[in-house]
């Protein structure tokens, strides 16, 4: 669990910068995520964490640098192509289809895996029917895994926030990702919901062998569940290491607590 990145990382970010006009949101950041690792990305507000995640998932394209997934360069791919490669994500602000049931929301996570013609799907016949049943069976495993059986048929928009976050995770898992990007999965949750979510993140990592990169503000959570922590400040990476090491890092303390300028 706590080994440093071995020879072939799953994801390599090499000198990536993202610019919005004159603003450099991410400045030549390099990092690597090993297969099976849980990596936390932390940093003060505006440090460029979400931007970095967006660059990895293809939302933004880097101004410079290179991103490789599974040893293949894919710096300029679009989000659907990135998803097809096996990278799934959740969003900082929940992005579910509010009028659709939890089950249907999670089924959308399987869309990339569905083949077949529109007509057969509409008729629910032959291979289309078989395929639908297979996907439904997989989705049921996720529902069981995340313990959301009781809300299967509830419209997502009616759920409390903590559960919506869980449904979003379920949808991401339904895509069977190799790499899961979680943008503040515990934001706005109470202590109990956070504990549940931590358990689900750890169990996902263990049961499915999913590699996870997450952005999180709750330092207790970060220290508890991550194998490695990367710290960003003003778009630059200022630290990278094991949680216990980061806790004592002077540059990190300065970034969070501020430094007195003489």
């Amino acid at each position, binding site marked *: 669990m706590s080994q440093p990145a071995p020879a072939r990382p799953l994801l390599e970010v090499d000198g990536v910068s993202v610019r919005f006009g004159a603003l450099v949101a991410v400045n030549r950041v390099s990092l690597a995520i090993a297969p099976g690792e849980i990596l936390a990305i932390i940093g003060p507000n505006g440090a460029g964490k979400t931007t970095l995640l967006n660059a990895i998932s293809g939302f933004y394209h880097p101004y410079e640098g290179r991103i490789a997934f599974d040893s293949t360069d894919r710096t300029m791919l679009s989000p659907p192509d990135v998803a097809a490669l096996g990278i799934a994500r959740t969003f900082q602000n929940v992005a579910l289809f509010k009028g659709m049931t939890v089950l249907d929301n999670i089924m959308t996570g399987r869309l990339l895996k569905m083949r077949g013609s529109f007509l057969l799907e509409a008729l629910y016949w032959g291979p289309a029917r078989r395929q639908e049943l297979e996907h439904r069976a997989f989705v049921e495993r996720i529902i069981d895994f995340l313990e959301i059986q009781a809300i299967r048929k509830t419209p997502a928009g009616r759920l409390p926030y903590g559960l919506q976050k869980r449904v979003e995770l379920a949808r991401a898992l339904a895509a069977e990702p190799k790499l899961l990007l979680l943008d503040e999965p515990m934001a706005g949750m109470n202590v109990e919901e956070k504990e549940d979510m931590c358990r689900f993140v750890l*169990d996902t990592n263990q049961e499915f062998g999913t590699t996870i990169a997450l952005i999180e503000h709750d330092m207790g959570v970060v220290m508890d569940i991550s194998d490695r922590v990367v710290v960003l400040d003003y778009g630059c990476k200022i630290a990278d290491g094991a949680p216990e090491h980061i806790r004592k890092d002077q540059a990190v303390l300065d970034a969070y607590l501020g430094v007195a300028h003489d």
Partner: protein
Amino acid sequence: MNAPAQSGDAHGLDDGLDTFPKLVRLNARRRPDKIAIREKDLGIWQSYTWSAYFEQARLIAQGLASLGFARGDRVAIIGDNRPQLYWAVMATQALGGVPVPIYQDSIEKEVEFVVDHAEARFAVVEDQEQVDKLLNVKARCPRLQHVVYDDPRGMRRYGDPCLMSLAELQELGKKFEAGHPNHFDDEMARGGADDVAIICYTSGTTGTPKGAMLSHRNLIVTARNAARFEGLGADEEILSYLPMAWVGDHIFSYAQAIITGFAINCPESAATVLHDLKEIAPTYFFGPPRIWESILTSVMVRVEDAVWVKRATVQLFLRLAQDIERRRLGRQPVALWQRLLYPLGNLLVYGPLKDNLGLRRVRRAYTAGEAIGPEIFLFFRGLGVNVKQLYGMTEASVFVTIQRDGDVRLDTVGTPITDVEIRLSEQGEVLFRSPGVFLGYAKNPEATRETLEDGWIHSGDAGFLGQDGHLKIIDRARDVGRLADGTLFAPKFLENKLKFSPYVREAVCVGQTRPWVTALVNIDLAAVGNWAERRNIAYTSYTDLAQKPEVYELIQREVERVNRSLAEDQALRGAQVRRFLILHKELDPDDQEITRTRKIRRGYIGQKYAPLIEALYSDRDHVPVEAKVTYEDGRAGTMRADVKIRDASVFAVPEAR
């Protein structure tokens, strides 16, 4: 202990069918393809037949045997209702061991107590949550050697050598079976009717839990008697949603299911029970009053949200149904127009509602454990759900009395079932004797002596037998007192009767060594407030509303309603409420008048309201009070009020019918 054993012999348990594993084997032969257990898993009801039931349990037993299971070993069983755990119960019994189910929501300390006290060597549990508890208490329970879990999730990296998954255990079982082909059959054959079949730990309100030991004979004879008494068949369906550690679930989901061969259904999770109920639509159902209450509430909430036409229709027909049912239970005639309207109500309201709740197919359902509010009882019976009251105890293998079909009452718990004898002690405590009477408490002879005397169980409940043979439970025996003239006085019974009125929130009855009974009443601010608004009665506060003469009239009617029903009971006729007052403030846990769980603190109230109580026993019709109140922020203040006192009519004989 000899007495029940002898009376059990009269029931001639066949040598080949005197334990549950043998009966399961019989089911597996006689009806191999009939469904025994369903479990909703991954969104689908998965079924297991009786032959699968026996096979799975046998493999678990073989696995346990390969770990060196010895006769008499105890196996802790912890988890939600799961087929695997029911199989583990049978597997344990087949090897001559004793299953000890533990409440799945127990905290570590409680688990530790039972595992340690029962000297469990094995544990079969559902998942990581329970494994974590056992790993934490293991150091202090040195006898515990093996922990077997069903769901491996989250435990990939657990390295404790005592751990094993159920699948691994069954694999071991297959290997063991190859080497010891006769072991299982031999062990099963060695089991007999008087072996301990299960130890159920009862929580009890005082002291440490006690482990009631029930034999196969206790459970088989009692479950069979009750099944015959009620006419259960192999086509029943039940929902197994109450904790496995509770004797009731063991009787309904295990003993009776095996004896009659009916199917049990395990819900997907605790949160989906009401939904699964609808999907299964059981024919046989059990729920304590709080379950019935929560179903009723879920209906009423939806009615309130409906458009007014629907709401009015539903309310009209629900009132009609309850009115008809009240008359029927009271053996009063039902008006012709009501009889004619009922089928229409059935078409428009009762049928669809029952269908929606999953109660459409219910042939019999029970409520037990505590008094059920008459409104709730009438609601379900009015819909046509045959819910009945039952009186039982762990120590009696549950069944003592049941209301027979066609002989249901609002305020009794029914008549004794086959082979149960009931008598009352001189103090009015209910004593009974039956083939179900337990073997005693595990390692607690003192408690056994207190409860079991010459084969008679001292229930700790005060009650009496009506002339119609119906048992009526009135209170816990230790709370029951006497009036000055020796009349039985059961305060909680009277208070419950008063509280069944929607307008009464709390009531405190006084009468111990007094000439008659009086009551201090708290009105329900929401209900009475609403009542007052509809009558254009203006009020400013609780205190103001409580002292309105109209409100006194209202409560007086409620008190007299209670008195009238008391008059029907010879034993309680003397304990009618003669005088009452409505308290100027609500009883509040902050003022130490009631506990946080809303139990009345009699002693404290007796002191605090001594002047009011004295006034109740004088001829004054009002009394000025000054009371200390504690505000939410902890400050204390005083309030003054003038509390009125009213007389209520008492009734001598029941009204002519």
